């Protein structure tokens, strides 16, 4: 574990669904000089969305910092094909037809360096929120709660459209908190910035209570994934 960040990860499935049905996925790799985080949100209406989201985040943290998103996705394609191949024989007509259309997920990958820089790439609406002095300093690529909808850009398991990928770099300071959240939570935090303070120190089992409370306040009932990096001076 790195000494300059405290990393917390949390996932909660949709209300009414089990953990095995959660199609949000996250992965973290940390070292003394950098932390890499990948968070993916598998499309509800796709097939094999969970397997695809997990393949993406695993590839996202397995590749080194200089690897571009196109190469990350290529690596995920290979892992995904191996994972689902045994399940494809004998699929009923509806699953066979849908499998031909591929699996889909939104993805955000960020590398945070001990030297004070971060660099992120994203396709879709998984969102990075930077919290400084207990206030939201920036959010990316989504910055408006009203802009979230049911049809974000997504990474397909069949082909990668690099035009969909966005990049952003920035600098962090000791005391900053970086949050990487899937769409429902990100939209909720943008709509109700007060919730960011509650989330700032939240640990299990408070996390599940936080999500339940947010849903009561109108957060969309969707899978939720969050990675929180509380950063200190190296």
């Amino acid at each position, binding site marked *: 574990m790195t000494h300059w960040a405290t990393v917390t990860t949390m996932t909660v499935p*949709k209300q*009414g669904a089990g953990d095995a049905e959660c199609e949000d996925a996250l992965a973290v790799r940390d070292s003394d000089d950098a932390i890499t985080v990948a968070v993916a*949100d598998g*499309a*509800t*209406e*796709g*097939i*094999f*969305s969970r*397997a695809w989201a997990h393949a993406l985040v695993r590839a996202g943290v397995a590749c080194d910092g200089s690897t571009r998103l196109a190469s990350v996705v290529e690596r995920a394609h290979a892992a995904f094909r191996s994972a*689902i191949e045994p*399940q494809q024989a004998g*699929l*009923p*007509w*509806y*699953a*066979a*037809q*849908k*499998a*031909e*259309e*591929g699996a*889909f997920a*939104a993805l955000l990958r960020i590398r945070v360096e001990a030297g004070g820089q971060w660099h992120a790439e994203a396709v879709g609406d998984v969102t990075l929120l930077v919290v400084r002095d207990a206030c939201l300093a920036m959010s990316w690529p989504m910055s408006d709660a009203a802009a979230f*909808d*049911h*049809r*974000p850009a*997504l990474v*397909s398991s*069949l*082909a990668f459209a690099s035009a969909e990928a966005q990049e952003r770099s920035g600098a962090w300071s000791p005391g900053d908190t970086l949050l990487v959240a899937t*769409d429902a939570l990100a939209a909720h935090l943008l709509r109700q910035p007060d919730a960011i303070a509650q989330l700032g120190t939240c640990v299990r089992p408070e996390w599940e209570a936080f999500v339940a409370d947010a849903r009561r306040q109108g957060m*969309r*009932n*969707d899978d939720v994934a969050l990675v929180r990096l509380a950063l200190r001076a190296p």
Partner: protein
Amino acid sequence: MPYSAEISRSQPVAFILLLDQSASMADPFGGAEQQGDAAPSKARVLADTVNRLLQNLILRCAKEDGVRDYFHVAVIGYGERVEALIRAADGPGETAAMVPVSALANRPLRLEPRTKTVADGQGGTTERVVQTPVWFDPYAKNGTPMCQALDYAAQLARMWIDVHPRAFPPVVLNITDGEATDGDPLRYAQQLRSFGSDDGEVLLLNVHVSDSTEPAVLFPDDLSGLPDSFAQTLYQMSSPLPFSMRAAAEAEGLRVTHDTRGFVFNADPTALVRFLEIGTRPSTLR
């Protein structure tokens, strides 16, 4: 906001399909590319439309581990009789007319091999044979008791709402050539549309399968482009599309206004299935 209730397995949407099986449905369909004897019958177009609708409903709910019951479906035929054409294996009386979509998925009448154009993964397309489910074949006999069918739909909708009072309201899709023989369908349509859940009133959508060769019309917002009195009556019977469905229609590039109604004339209504939001949806899935 109305018509915004979550659609989930615990809060599914009821789809009630009303199929005109009257003798006039044996006449040729006017919107076909072929004309004269080569044109398919309206009953054939109706059967293809229903099979495609059911296929789309199921595909929207399909996951690797099965079909999630976001939708329950009733299919009511009206012609010689007004009756449920599918029934759940269990369940008493009218409740058996409402079948979870997973049960439909697992028991089509047959699977037919059909050629489909698909992406080849290299920027082009290729043809592939896919197994296509068929639940209904063409059928046409006797009069058009549309009013009775709308009344039956109202009974089913009310029973559904009693059990699911906070859910997205039932969606009734009436596919017909428009010639009711048992009264004024507008009155029955208004009665049906007056029932509602906490989320909104029953949505009645009409698909006019006509022998007219006038151009197809998809989700119009006024009467002016409609060719005859049957189309105009069906338009008047149809619900305005709610905001959430208009937004989904706009996202697909359709021109909609506040007055846009759930009505299509000699056109494919399958898009209606896509206008209901279940969750994150790849824009490539149609």
